């Protein structure tokens, strides 16, 4: 086998991924990246050098340690079910991670092929395997350990909660997920738009969890419908994967003008409530001519591109630093540019101006210059006095970050949280309340899907250990969480 790989000529160039034409796609919510055909996928797979699992940098740099060369080999052997099973040994949501992970800074970052040519397109291969399996009705075989008689409650059905639930279920525990919204998936269903992550895929992966026996109750807000104490009475352990869903607003005059949205509201209306199909669906969203989106992360890109698709003719991204400091995925920034989103750098809103009926008419911006690096290593934007100017707009989306929602722990004084509102955990994801674990954006603040999944996995291991041993430390020593 290995001899065969060595003999083969190295294909330096990546097999390109077919995409919808930008002029066409800004009129619809269909997926932009179309994904590989079988032939294309196998050709791209054949470029992999099959580094040994012990040293393959792609595995090491994946937060959930997907055996990349392993699944690629199965693909090349024509065993798609095998490929899926290799991925799903460590990753319960491959159709999702294959689409939304920032692979360029994870598995693909140090891919050895990068020394000879283009790095392997690992994300698109993972996506291909998941899609192929879904379309061909291929189900992975999962081993479920015999029942342990223990029950675990998972709060929140985002990537952290779903992953923890899947792993705990496989360990033989009974698992119940409680979700506040009417549909499971967290940011995957209310935040990330259909054109990047079709909801059908999220639903399919959630269905898989149900098929292995995970129960999901929607419309249950822990802290309101049931308290955390209620859960502790009924369950042997609890995992909190409640995310960072509360939007930050700018503290500037006019922020409550009509037509100013948080990105969360704008995206929730569009994605979860399908306002782009209004009035077929009942939830409205404001349409207009010119939209300004404030921020430079994935959320800002998603809001801007959604804006185009609901009919805004001109969409601006207003960002306070420069292009290289934007935190959005490179692929998505490129997509936004192709679609005609206009970028304005080094500007910061200082006020919004409304008309007499309260509608936003302009955003007043001040120009910035870059100063010394701040604690995140990015150069701090410093406003230039007297440089204010107005940009006329019909609507504004504020996408300057989110913090954890406190609704859950408002009435749980034992649960220690940081000043930013993130839940304090130790290196085994234990909170300061016995039997309660947490992970994902709830402990990190806004991070990524796969980091949340990694937390869910590691927390599941720790929960399993706790259920078997009953051990709990006297004092929780806070884990260091790298600032994003």
């Amino acid at each position, binding site marked *: 086998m290995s001899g065969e790989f060595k003999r083969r000529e190295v294909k330096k160039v990546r097999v390109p991924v077919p995409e919808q034409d930008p002029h066409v796609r800004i009129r619809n919510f269909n997926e932009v990246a179309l994904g590989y055909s079988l032939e294309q996928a196998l050709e791209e797979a054949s470029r992999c050098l099959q580094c040994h699992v012990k040293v393959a940098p792609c595995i090491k740099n994946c937060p959930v340690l997907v055996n990349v060369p392993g699944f690629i080999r199965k693909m090349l052997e024509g065993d798609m079910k095998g490929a899926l099973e290799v991925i799903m040994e460590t990753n319960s949501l491959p159709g999702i991670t294959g689409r939304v992970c920032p692979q360029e800074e994870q598995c693909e970052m140090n891919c050895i092929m990068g020394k000879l040519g283009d790095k392997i397109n690992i994300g698109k291969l993972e996506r291909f395997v998941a899609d192929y399996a879904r379309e061909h009705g291929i189900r992975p075989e999962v081993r479920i350990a015999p029942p342990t008689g223990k029950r675990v409650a998972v709060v929140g059905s985002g990537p952290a909660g779903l992953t923890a639930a899947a792993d705990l279920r496989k360990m033989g525990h009974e698992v119940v997920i409680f979700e*506040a*919204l*009417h549909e499971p998936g967290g940011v995957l269903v*209310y935040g990330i738009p259909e054109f990047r992550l079709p909801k059908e895929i999220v639903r399919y992966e959630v269905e898989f969890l149900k098929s292995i026996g995970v129960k999901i109750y*929607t*419309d*249950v*807000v822990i802290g*309101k*419908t*049931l*308290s955390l104490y209620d859960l502790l009475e009924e369950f042997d352990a609890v995992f909190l994967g409640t995310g960072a*869903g*509360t*939007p930050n*607003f700018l*503290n500037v005059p006019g*922020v*409550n003008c*009509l*037509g100013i*949205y*948080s990105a*969360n*509201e704008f995206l*929730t*209306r569009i994605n979860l*409530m*399908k306002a782009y199909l*209004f*009035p*077929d*669906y*009942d*939830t*409205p969203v*404001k349409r207009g001519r010119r939209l300004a989106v404030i921020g430079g992360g994935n959320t800002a890109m998603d809001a801007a591109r959604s804006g185009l698709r609901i009919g805004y003719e001109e969409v601006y991204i207003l960002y306070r630093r420069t292009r290289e400091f934007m935190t959005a995925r490179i692929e998505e920034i490129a997509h936004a540019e192709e679609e005609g989103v206009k970028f304005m750098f080094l500007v910061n809103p200082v006020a919004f101006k409304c008309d007499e*009926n*309260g509608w936003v008419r302009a955003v007043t911006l001040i120009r910035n210059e870059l100063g010394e690096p701040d604690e995140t290593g990015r150069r701090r934007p410093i406003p230039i006095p007297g440089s204010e100017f107005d940009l006329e707009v019909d609507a504004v989306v504020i996408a300057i970050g989110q913090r954890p*929602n*406190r*609704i859950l722990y408002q009435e749980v004084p034992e649960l220690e949280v940081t000043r930013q509102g993130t839940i304090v955990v130790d290196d085994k994801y234990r909170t300061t309340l016995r039997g309660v674990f947490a992970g994902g954006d709830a402990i990190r603040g806004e991070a990524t899907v796969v980091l949340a999944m990694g937390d869910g996995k590691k927390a599941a291991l720790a929960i399993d250990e706790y259920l078997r041993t009953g051990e709990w430390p006297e004092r929780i020593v806070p884990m260091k969480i790298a600032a994003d």
Partner: protein
Amino acid sequence: MFEIVGKRELAPNIKWIKVKAPLVARNAKPGQFVVIRLHEKGERIPLTLFRWDKDEGTIELVFQEVGKTTYELGTYEVGDAIADVVGPLGRPTHIENFGTAVVVSGGVGAPIGYSVTKALKEAGNYVISIIGFRNKQLVILEDEFREVSDELLVTTDDGSYVRKGFTTDVLSELLESGRNVDYVFTVGPVIMMKKVADITRKYGIKTYASLNPIMVDGTGMCGACRVTVGGQVVFACVAGPDFDAHQVDFDELLKRLAMYREEERLAMERFLQMRQVSVVGR
């Protein structure tokens, strides 16, 4: 799915329903609300808990048909089910023994006013209820209020029932007459609540209002419900819906409620058209 187990029309376009929702009933407190979604294509709207029964596992809602969703809910009958009912949401109304409390409720604010009145009474207050409606036909919950109030004052805008005038006229008279009032709670149209606040401010009476901004999730996730209270932006669904009425920017709230007026009209027209077609089709 949440089954409707009781339904009545209280007045033209004002309906009462009883819904099976055991978990909501179990933890409900006065002043809290639920967010409901009728079906797959529906929007999420907030409605206040009027009454609830833990043992029976039911909640009662009173709603006014004002637009597409509430009209459609009005067509639901006993045995039909609502896709989603989430709650109880919001902070419960702060209840203590203040002494003499006045509850001023306007129109379809009455069901909220009722649950608060009942709780204030149970906490030992002497409670005066002022309820106002546009006209005689629209008067609802009079008997219920009488049961839990020490005094009940009813008004109609046009004088077609009991006395003519606004609730705020009655409140002014009461305070001018020198009655000693320790606490006022108000719920109803924004204009009314604003006027109540203006009146009690002069007397320095502690006053709380239950606000009704546009909501989506109702759990603090979106900020659609944000209001300015004491110069600070807060989310009414998690910090409220009750706030110190003397601190609320009512003018801003009023403007923000109009945000989707055009779309609401469009949705309503379409709904009526489709109903007509289906009626004719039958």
